[in-house]
């Protein structure tokens, strides 16, 4: 098992370097002059040129990229933000917890919404309830999250005045973002739960259990649900991974100081070191989450566990 984990972690290194290359390459095209951004509009052309030279920005693309990777890997130095002139992780690490909370809230909300309704609509396939759940799920996917967020703010903050519309200081601030993210992602959990349940319900072992006279409740939860869980876990893990950096809209509308809004700001300011560090951190977290998902498979399914142990 440990060998498997080690192998997976090692495999992440080339992936991260590849991602770093892609982002470095894209950011290179972004218009804007870092030296000018640092010195401000009033600086002279000579000063800007001098700083550009000092920062090594006149070097070729590959020289800059390899210098970046060298500093990052050997010295663990990811550079200094062009905007604040502080080490990048000062900013990134103060904001990352907020993103983790947001993603956790969204993931838990989607799971609590999606799994029960998914199981219910699979067990009662073709009933009125199933149809109603499907209609709700389809509409939810089609709603743009920023619009949902605006409507929620309008109703709960502006009209009723019961919930705050901006910030991330207390748990109350996380209520509206959680609803927004649940509406955006809950139906994915619901649909995968439903289809996975429908598949397992038709399995032979479920029929055997029925024939043996096992109570319906036990069949649904012990026999069918446990086996239907694998694809659901993948989906939930994927949602968590993508919400870490993908809750940009939510962070922006609710003015939450998370990583997503930092990336948007940094992209607009051409603050390359911050963009690089944030995206590498996100990709690393994504990789770790997917590894955890795969390990969870092993706990649920002994067949997969046996496979990992063989290495």
């Amino acid at each position: 098992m440990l060998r498997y984990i080690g192998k997976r972690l090692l495999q992440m290194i080339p992936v991260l370097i590849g991602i770093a290359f892609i982002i470095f390459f894209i950011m290179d095209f972004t218009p804007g002059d870092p030296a000018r951004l640092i010195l401000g509009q009033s600086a002279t052309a000579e000063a800007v040129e001098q700083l550009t030279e000092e920062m090594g920005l006149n070097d070729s693309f590959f020289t800059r990229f390899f210098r970046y990777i060298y500093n990052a890997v050997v010295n663990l130095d990811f550079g200094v933000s062009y905007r604040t002139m502080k080490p990048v992780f000062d900013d990134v690490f103060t904001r990352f917890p907020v993103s983790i909370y947001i993603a956790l809230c969204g993931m838990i909300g989607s799971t609590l919404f999606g799994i029960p309704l998914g199981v219910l609509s699979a067990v009662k396939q073709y009933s009125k309830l199933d149809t109603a759940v499907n209609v709700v799920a389809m509409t939810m996917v089609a709603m743009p999250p920023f619009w949902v967020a605006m409507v929620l703010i309008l109703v709960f903050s502006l009209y009723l005045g019961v919930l705050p519309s901006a910030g991330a200081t207390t748990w109350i601030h996380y209520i509206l973002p959680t609803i927004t993210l649940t509406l955006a992602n809950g139906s994915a959990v619901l649909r995968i739960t439903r289809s996975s349940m429908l598949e397992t319900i038709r399995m032979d072992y479920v029929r055997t259990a029925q024939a043996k006279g096992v109570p319906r409740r036990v069949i649904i939860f012990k026999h069918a649900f446990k086996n239907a869980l694998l694809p659901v876990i993948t989906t939930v893990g994927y949602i968590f991974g993508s919400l870490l950096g993908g809750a940009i809209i939510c962070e922006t509308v609710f003015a939450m100081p998370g990583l997503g809004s930092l990336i948007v700001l940094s992209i607009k300011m051409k603050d390359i070191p911050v963009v690089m560090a944030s995206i590498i951190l996100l990709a690393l977290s994504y990789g770790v989450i997917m590894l955890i998902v795969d390990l969870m498979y092993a706990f649920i399914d002994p067949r997969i566990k046996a496979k990992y142990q063989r290495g």
Partner: protein
Amino acid sequence: MALAATKNNKSIALKRKGKLKEFWRRYKKNRSAMVGLVLLLFILFCAIFANVIADEDAVTRHNPEIRRQGPSAEHWFGTDIYGRDIYSRVIFGSRISLMIGVFSAALSLLLGGVLGAVAAYFGGWLDDIIMRIMDMLMSIPATLLALTLVAALGSSTTNLVIALALSNLPSFARLTRSSMLTVVDSDYVEAAKAYGARNGHVIFKEVMPNAMGPIIVQTTQSVSNMILTASSLSFLGVGVQAPAPEWGAMLAEAREFMRQFPYMIISPGIFIIITALSFNLVGDGFRDALDPRLKD
């Protein structure tokens, strides 16, 4: 000889027609798929006849005298902060959103499809390289990747389409690859290869048509995804630029005033939902109609 050829063509045409008819027969039995189709036709109607059912001048014309008016007989959806008619803007907005959605999905399908097909067909190191790059792209959230790309390319509708297409490329490449792999191993492909058919022939004539089902479904549904992401990016100010009547951009403009003038955020939102919903429902309908396991 010529006669035989015509006869042959005719029978192929008949066979194809029969397939389409069968597809339609199964599709129209699905109620939610039909609802999706009606919604889609409605949005298409709005887009095609926008200049008939709405006033093109009112889309961009500033009219301070009538600004911030609620819905009325004259301005069905009210007017915005510059006195532009929201109804006309929303109707013309359907052209922009449909165009972005369809073009970016098509471009993504084309690029991703070629990459996936090449990876599946040739396998080996080429497969490894292509799929590892796709894995890398997959681990950056699509919205974030699109945002970075638009920032690099510059905010414009064309660049938005390119960015959306590139950020969704991995899912198309993966899907094409996996659905091709199941086909590549089949006997008829082996037969064609043994017969001495060239790679291009095997890919486009044998493998593609048989691997098409899931790809069509995903393309339809990704149109809706692209439309949603495009409106999100426009909402963030990096997508379609003002004064173009893009729904997301309209909502961004209305955001500051939503307390006093909540009607401004209703109609663009409803239209986004209708459009996205229609493509999702139609995509689901396609999947059910194409699925041989559901055949009655």
